[in-house]
């Protein structure tokens, strides 16, 4: 497979994506961001780095991830053909590892010994703890206290991998507050520490760098689908939290005008209710966590707490490139409710024997509707960003799947 991963994205290298992006951070962090940006600009075109990363993708992560057609699921989607890009089969269980391995190599190049990360669902935390173990780095993971409870299994995984997990008790005690706490750590320990950011948001260079590292998803899928069907898909779909798996699969298709791009946000109870995380659907432009983008905020500019059954999508911000793609109309963003996502999760499990992450199930639910709109004969590529093992407790509770007598205390 050709290595397209160094090709420039049509959206450009940052720091700005139209009116969005930039670096809205305290001055003490600027030197570290400059250091990352410079190192990344050098590294991403460095043949030694490219081949080392390619070897890790192949021998450690298990790439290329397969492309699976799911006809029994697609029967519920208006007769469209549906293909899943199986990021759930990656080592550690989601797309997050693609980004983390690149940033871990970057950390080594810069010469720092400690990494920190925020995590929501715990997938990015697990991926970071994994890379830290592999590269022999010290690792601290910040995770909102609410998330340490709903993703307890991932907390145990991170600790098993040797990482310190710090439950964050400030604010809404979810992903946004974990990012605040990680930034505070970084400001304090910037001389020794790299912040491995988990999504395509935050200050430059993170949105562009994370995209560059995740675009392998779309690059592979585009080639696989062409080989399988002889044509490009009509639509590409992904769930959007901060936006890394979505931008990872979108980038390869940005220059294909016939391919429609759909991002599915977490609607929570519904985008028309206060309990939602659908940032592009109901937010407005502002600054959060270092970037100008859409933000869920009140009339005073205070961030509004998001709500989603999915820890990984429970975030009141979104990456700046998505804000740009939404405004330009190149991509369409829609909200999917908790209930619709959970139903889609069960449907894929029962029709195809694949248990997706709740995050990814938002894309699946979106595709059930989208397929009906596009009609039979349409081809839809979906990023199945992660697997559902971590969500077993939440899903069991939602569908009442555990016999009360069988629960062990």
């Amino acid at each position: 497979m050709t290595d397209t991963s160094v090709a420039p994205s049509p959206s450009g290298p940052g720091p700005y994506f139209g009116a969005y992006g930039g670096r809205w951070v305290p001055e003490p962090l600027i030197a570290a961001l400059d250091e990352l940006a410079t190192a990344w600009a050098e590294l991403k075109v460095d043949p030694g780095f490219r081949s080392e990363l390619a070897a890790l993708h192949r021998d450690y992560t298990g790439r290329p991830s397969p492309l699976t057609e799911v006809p029994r699921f697609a029967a519920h989607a208006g007769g469209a053909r549906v293909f899943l890009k199986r990021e759930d089969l990656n080592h550690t269980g989601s797309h997050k590892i693609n980004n983390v391995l690149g940033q871990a190599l970057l950390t080594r190049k810069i010469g720092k010994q400690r990494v920190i990360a925020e995590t929501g669902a715990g997938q990015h935390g697990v991926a970071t703890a994994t890379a830290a173990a592999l590269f022999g780095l010290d690792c601290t993971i910040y995770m909102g206290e609410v998330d340490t409870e709903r993703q307890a299994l991932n907390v145990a995984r991170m600790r098993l991998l040797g990482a310190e997990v710090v439950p964050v008790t400030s604010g809404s005690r979810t992903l946004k507050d974990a990012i605040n706490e990680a930034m505070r750590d970084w400001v304090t320990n910037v001389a020794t520490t790299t912040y491995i950011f988990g999504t395509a948001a935050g200050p430059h260079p993170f949105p562009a760098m994370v995209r560059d590292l995740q675009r392998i998803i779309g690059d592979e899928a585009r080639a696989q689908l062409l080989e399988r069907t002889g044509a490009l898909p009509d639509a590409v779909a992904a769930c959007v939290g901060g936006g890394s798996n979505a931008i990872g699969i979108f980038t390869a298709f940005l220059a294909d005008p016939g391919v429609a791009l759909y991002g599915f946000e977490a609607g929570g109870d519904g985008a028309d209710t206060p309990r939602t995380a659908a940032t592009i659907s109901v937010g407005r432009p502002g600054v959060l966590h270092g970037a100008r983008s859409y933000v869920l905020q009140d009339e005073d500019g205070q961030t509004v707490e998001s709500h989603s059954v999915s820890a990984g999508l429970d975030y009141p911000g979104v990456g700046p490139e998505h804000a740009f793609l939404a405004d330009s109309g190149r991509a369409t963003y829609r909200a999917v409710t908790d209930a619709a996502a959970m139903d889609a999760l069960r449907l894929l499990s029962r029709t195809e024997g694949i248990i997706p992450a709740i995050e990814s199930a938002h894309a699946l639910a979106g595709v059930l509707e989208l397929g009906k709109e596009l009609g039979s004969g349409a081809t839809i590529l979906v990023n199945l960003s992660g697997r559902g093992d971590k969500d077993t407790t939440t899903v069991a509770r939602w569908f009442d799947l555990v016999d009360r007598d069988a629960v062990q205390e």
Partner: protein
Amino acid sequence: MSTSVLERRFASVKATRAGTLVGYLPIGYPDLATSIEAAITLTQHGVDVLELGLPYSDPVIDGPTIQAATTIALEQGFRLKHAFEAVREISRASDAAVLCMTYYNPVLSYGVERFATDLAAAGGAGLITPDLVPEEAGEWIAASDAAGLDRVFLAAPTSPDERLRAAAEASRGFTYVVSTMGITGARSDVDSAARSLVGRLRAVTDRPLAVGIGISTGAQVAEVLTYADGAIVGSRLVTALGEGLASLADVADGLAEGTRRP
């Protein structure tokens, strides 16, 4: 004479004292009325410049003390309009220069020009914007120029010389010298990094320089004022206010001791 309220204030303080004491308190903590009274109390106990913090949901450079206080202020129902009310009342009741410290999103959300106009109308001297770097600040620089407001940018130990120059040039009033790599909070030692950073800034600007983060005693204020024009104290005052206005007055007196000419 400078058109900057703060630069004039720093100059006039120098005539009698070693330098300027800048005191931080969040608006709305423990409630709006007490926070206004507390700010006025500071001005009666040796604080020349007030830095009123606007509580914000995501205060990334604040340590636990200030986070806890601003969380209470938000829970008490702090709204942006209260900031303008507080500035108006405090300016009326004292002759201190009143700066606001705010993360940038509330300003953006309110409208940058409208924020500047309303702050100036309330009697405010300007803004400290901890998450705004000069290259993103075009709109705020234009609005603050139009409204005649001061604007304070941060200089950090890790900033290379060209960024120090940019921060000092973009600032009006003073430049905020971040004493140490870290978040706000009282510390037992003020980092020696502060002294060398002030030295590097002196090479690129002759405008006032005030050192902040970690200062909590009169002795530290005195030490900082041997090389800087101002000393900024936050967390220590917030902790004192938690114990009541009398305690706040005592602590302010102790800090102000440090501004005496040796």
